[in-house]
């Protein structure tokens, strides 16, 4: 084993160059009006930013990458919410699976049942064969994830209940099949492989190999979208303002996002 020889603080150089301190960003989210916005601040002290996109019907954001779907376009955005990839897409909502490494993503088109790989600089690549080869999914998935280039994660509902599955994108083989207890609403998958789903008016965070965590919310859930590393944006069915829910283990919390003017 190599030994640590030293850790040298370079902070002074950073702050003297005024690059070491900035406004913190929680992530970005799709508001109730379909605007996609950055969210600055810290937990409970949010500051919604100006709309970077409008007319957004689906969105996901994690660390330095975001994917937004407007009526006719799928876009991958970088940390500055600049477009790094754009593809035409049919109308309607999509499921977005953000990648753990890099700006690539998977998109499942609800309208057509198409599964696409989105990679900046490349045409969208259909993965329908792999998806259908699994033979497990009679209905559309509730959420997808992109743990690596060879697999996809999916939250699926079958007659036997809801499951978190890991599917090979090469041959459709299912390598993981984990039950998701009490799932009865929307779901999302983090790049790290955690399933976040609705169970009544609770938000359940399911990480393979760990006990599920449950956060009570004021009403049933209408939608869940990834909104930053360790955060999801939750729309409740009662029409109340969007929630920002921290799902990071040990730091869970439920907050409301200030409703920015259109």
């Amino acid at each position, binding site marked *: 084993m190599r030994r640590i020889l030293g850790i040298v603080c370079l902070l002074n150089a950073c702050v003297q160059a005024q690059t070491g301190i900035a406004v913190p960003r929680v992530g970005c989210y799709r508001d109730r009006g379909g605007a996609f916005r950055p969210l600055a601040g810290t937990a409970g002290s949010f500051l919604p930013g100006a709309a970077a996109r409008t007319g957004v019907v689906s969105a996901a954001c994690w660390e330095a990458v975001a994917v937004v779907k407007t009526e006719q376009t799928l876009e991958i955005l970088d940390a500055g919410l600049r477009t790094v990839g754009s593809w035409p897409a049919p109308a309607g909502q999509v499921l977005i699976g953000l990648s753990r490494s890099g700006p690539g993503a998977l998109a499942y088109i609800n309208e057509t049942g198409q599964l696409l790989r989105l990679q900046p600089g490349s045409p969208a690549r259909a993965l329908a064969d792999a998806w259908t080869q699994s033979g497990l999914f009679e209905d559309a998935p509730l959420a997808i994830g992109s743990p690596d280039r060879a697999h996809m994660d999916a939250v699926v509902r079958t007659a036997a209940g809801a499951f978190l599955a890991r599917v090979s994108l090469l041959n459709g083989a299912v390598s993981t099949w984990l039950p998701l207890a009490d799932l009865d609403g929307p779901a999302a998958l983090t790049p790290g492989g955690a399933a976040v789903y609705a169970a009544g008016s609770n938000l359940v965070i399911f990480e393979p190999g760990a006990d599920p965590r449950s956060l009570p919310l004021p009403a049933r859930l209408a939608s869940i979208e990834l909104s930053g590393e360790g955060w999801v944006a939750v729309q409740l069915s009662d029409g109340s303002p969007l929630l920002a829910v921290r799902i990071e283990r040990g730091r869970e919390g439920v907050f409301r996002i*200030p409703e920015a003017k259109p």
Partner: protein
Amino acid sequence: MTGKVALCAAACCGMAFAQLALSPVSTGLPVPVSQALDLGSVETGDSLTIALQVTNTSSAFATLSSVTLSGVGFTAGGLPDLPLQLATGASQQFQLVFAPGTAGAYSGTLTINDTDSYTLVAHATGATLLVQQGSGMGVLSAGATVDFGSVVRGSSVSPVSLSFRIDNPTGQAIQITMLSVTGDAAFSGPLELAALPPFRLDAGKSAAFRVAFSPQKSGTAAGTLTLNGRTVQLTGTATDPSFPTFHIVCDPPVLASGQQAKVSIKFDAPAPVSGSSTLDMQFLYGKGDPTLLFITPAGRSAPFTVAAGTESALFSGQTTIDFQTGTTAGTIIFTATLGGQTETLSLVIPAAPVSIDSIRTVFATGQMTVSVSAFDNTRSASQVSFTFRDASGTELGAGMLTSDVTSAFQQYFQNPEAGGNFVLRGAFSVSGDATQVKSVDVGMVNSAGTGTGSAKITE
């Protein structure tokens, strides 16, 4: 109405009275003295104005010393102060107004310089409009204003209303083609009218109706009552009702920075009427804090309503409204004004050590970046320390690494676009086996103490 103009005469000593002729301005034809001047007819409640002139028809200066008018419904206007010298051929104009209150024949007398008298005749036709005045009814002229007085808006008791009556004093039936109340929605009518226009009002008959004034908002309201093209102005004033004493309540009652809390408005007794206003939030701190705001709508002012019979104000249908306490120490002041009553609630956000929200680490070749998201509600951060540990908790490298960040934070907080929030990124050069680094402790010093946080490093 009796119109009488009596203006003093002041004859010039030694000067004889010259001949002054009266004529309508429109024709310029002199009216012979003692001859009747027929002004024609006008509908009751309307008025008729005719311009007259007095002309010096003599070859010498003449003095117009007085113009005297008598007779119900006649008035004069536009006359200068008298006496007035008129040169040969010069004229002085004035207006003669006929404004009858009821139908019928009218007569009066116009006298120039107490010597030359002219008989005035005119006729009023059509319906007469009357309004309740005390226990009786008074005639309304066209353009008159009916004042409904001052009432409490939204009053649950019967609205203020006034009785009106249309009389037909003529010998012939009159067709009422229009009778309407327009303008501010506070006015409604005609109410309790036996038949809606158009209807026929026989000779000698009357039609009674009411106009109600029931304002829902405070201030002056204006409307118009129209009868066959004749208009009468309606006015009234609405005042705010008295609401029971109310209180602004915060949950929780003691606050700190970085919280989301709820505020509500509660009354000591049910509100007698409905109302609406805004709850405003101020922050007593020099540089402000944009993260101190209501959630919906995001901002420092939130509209609320109060329903009659309830004891809580509603914010978008909810009895509470969420707000963020922000990230700056200071005093939050909530203010609400309703029905002339103003209530405030002051909440002190105490100074606190730096609150560390999250710590994230990123490894690159030979370098590790630690990002500390936090807020400093004193905006006085001066020192930051990092301690890296291995899996057993043993400090690595040279132990605690400390850096003075006073000037950097002073500069950053010059423009507090995110209040006291900040992310501090520290870069570290790592030599050796970086996988041994399993956690990092962060400490930050400000004027209120030291805030700490730690994070596990998993990759």
